[in-house]
């Protein structure tokens, strides 16, 4: 026997408690990872080169307030501005789908390549989009989701404008960080919905990143003290302010994460204290036969650390697997289900009915999770297209590992100190 074997045997002496402890850490760390990835995805700065050159201009009062189309020449005259396009949210509902589907924006089709150059299509598709007034292009993700193809007709009821528009799909683009939107002609919207003279916002492209601060300041200044003051900002700043309209998401997710971590510490500390307290007598024996305080401290720390790390492996590893490869996750779930069912049946055969039935219920739950992961193997399917990517980055795994390590250390401190303070004689008097 080695010291490691001794520690493992001690940690697993009460298998049910050890399993529940590991699962509580795993579920909490899974939740933590999920929240951190969600926060990252929502606030992710655009990484494409075009984003570094794009400026969003919206009504200073609110993004819901429209801007006059007559602002266009004034913006185009600002030195450093290369191209400008309106960008108006249509708010169309696809077929009878409820909730969020995909967003549609009206724009100047001739400015697509200059302002949103990363949206790649073939040359005939670009040309068709630029020349056909009722044409539209859609992102690859949306096309795949709704099985749409070039040449299809698409009719959308607007929830913003009192009109219904029918579009002809002339292109399917890919290459942006979010290939879900549909783009069509502002002119078509203006004519069909009697919207002439108003746009939702402006997107512009500046010549160089160095021009951006100057352009932002100039655009803001150009409409100061007018009936439609604007707020110009970089794409990243715009996205963050857009997210902030949902509420202070960062604070909200941060608060939930803190509560998760704090609860986790309480649960683990309580479990470790209980686990150590019930073998005070044994620890006193170890002291008597020559184990020193620091060795006992190391045993307790290793046990607590080991449980936390097992939880990390299950929680963060499970999250990574679920968000990157749902089918493997599903296969593992089915494997675990088979093991639980087997052992539960054996338990029932041995006439431990309540444990056996509990095991079967747990197996059903795991199987249900596996089935769901199998049917929705990608994050896009899991979130019905809300998230396209959901990357468990090394940094997020690192944060989860630090939390787990901290958990292992913090929850072992109190029991370790009580063992260190305990005299052998008083420990021996402890009742089993």
């Amino acid at each position, binding site marked *: 026997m080695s010291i490691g074997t*001794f520690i493992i045997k001690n940690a*697993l002496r009460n298998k049910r408690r050890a399993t529940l402890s590991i699962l509580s850490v795993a579920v909490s760390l899974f939740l933590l990872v999920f929240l951190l990835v969600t926060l990252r995805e929502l606030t992710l700065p655009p990484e494409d080169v075009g984003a570094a050159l794009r400026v969003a201009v919206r009504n200073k009062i609110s993004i819901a307030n429209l801007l006059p189309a007559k602002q266009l020449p004034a913006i185009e005259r600002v030195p450093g501005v290369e191209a400008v396009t309106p960008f108006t949210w249509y708010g169309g509902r696809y077929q009878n789908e409820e909730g969020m589907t995909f967003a549609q924006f009206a724009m100047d089709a001739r400015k697509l390549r200059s302002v949103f150059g990363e949206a790649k299509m073939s040359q005939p598709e670009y040309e068709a989009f630029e020349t056909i007034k009722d044409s539209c292009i859609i992102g690859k993700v949306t096309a795949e989701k709704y099985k749409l193809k070039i040449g299809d007709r698409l009719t959308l009821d607007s929830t913003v404008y009192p009109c219904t528009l029918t579009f002809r799909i002339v292109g399917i683009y890919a290459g942006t960080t979010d290939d879900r939107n549909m783009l069509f002609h502002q002119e078509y919207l203006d004519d069909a919905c009697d919207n002439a003279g108003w746009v939702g916002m402006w997107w512009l492209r500046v010549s160089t990143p160095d021009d951006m601060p100057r352009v932002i300041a100039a655009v803001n200044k150009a409409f100061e003290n007018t009936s439609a003051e604007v707020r110009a900002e970089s794409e990243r700043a715009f996205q963050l302010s857009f997210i902030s309209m949902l509420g202070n998401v960062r604070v909200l997710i941060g608060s939930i994460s803190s509560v998760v971590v704090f609860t986790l510490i309480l649960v683990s500390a309580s479990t470790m204290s209980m686990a150590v307290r019930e073998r005070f007598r044994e620890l006193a024996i170890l*002291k*008597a036969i020559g184990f020193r305080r620091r060795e006992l401290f190391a045993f307790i720390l290793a046990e607590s650390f080991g449980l936390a790390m097992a939880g990390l492996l299950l929680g963060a590893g499970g999250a990574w697997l679920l968000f990157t490869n749902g089918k493997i996750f599903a296969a593992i779930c089915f494997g675990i289900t088979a093991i639980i069912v087997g052992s539960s049946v054996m338990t029932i055969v041995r006439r431990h009915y309540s444990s056996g039935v509990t095991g079967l219920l747990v197996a059903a739950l795991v199987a249900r999770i596996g089935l769901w992961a199998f049917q929705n193997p990608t994050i896009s399917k899991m979130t019905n297209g809300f998230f396209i990517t959901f990357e468990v980055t090394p940094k997020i795994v690192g944060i989860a590992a630090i939390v787990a390590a901290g958990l292992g250390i913090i929850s072992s401190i109190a029991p370790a100190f009580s063992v260190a303070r305990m005299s052998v004689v008083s420990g021996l008097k402890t009742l089993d």
Partner: protein
Amino acid sequence: MPEPETIVAIRNLSKVYSQGEIQVTALNNISLDIARGEFLTLMGPSGSGKSTLLHIIAGIDRPTSGECRVQGVNVTQLNESELADWRNQNVGFVFQTFNLIPVLTAFENVELPLLLTKLSRKQRQQLVSTALEIVGLADRSHHLPRQLSGGQEQRVAIARALVTDPSLVVADEPTGNLDSHSAQEVLTVLQSLSRTANKTVIMVTHDPKAAAYGSRSIHLEKGELSN
């Protein structure tokens, strides 16, 4: 005949417990010599201080005053860490409630004190097997404590006490939880340790029959030696 070597020398040993404002004297000015190879039994009524004396000799408790030398080492002067090392190398413990680790087999329980040494795995295995053979449990080495009888558990505890080859074996009521047959087996093992292996065995007991296995018996009464 040569004078037997003194292994434990106790001089003017006192132990006073403070319970709030009340002071309880557990040991009062005890002086005692114990020879190598002796099987000494400590007897006396509850609260007489016999277990306290045993704990001080074994280095798991400290006196209020006085001196306790074991093989020339004044154990009352050692710090916590030194005491732990000293106990590992010089003292084997046997308790009334066996105190085996329930998740470890008999073999692993006996091996436990050897984990603190620099012995190789093979050397440890050899020593553990020898210790289990001495107590007659070589065939039970892979049993968990719950699979053993009380007497067998106590014999495993004795093997654990012996495995580091200590000069001193201390036993606190080792037969208190055993039936008469098992008690006899355990006492026979302890006696043979003293007689054949020249170990010094100090045993606390209430039972005059158990005390009869010792080579010398001393009585404590209210913290003092009564004869």
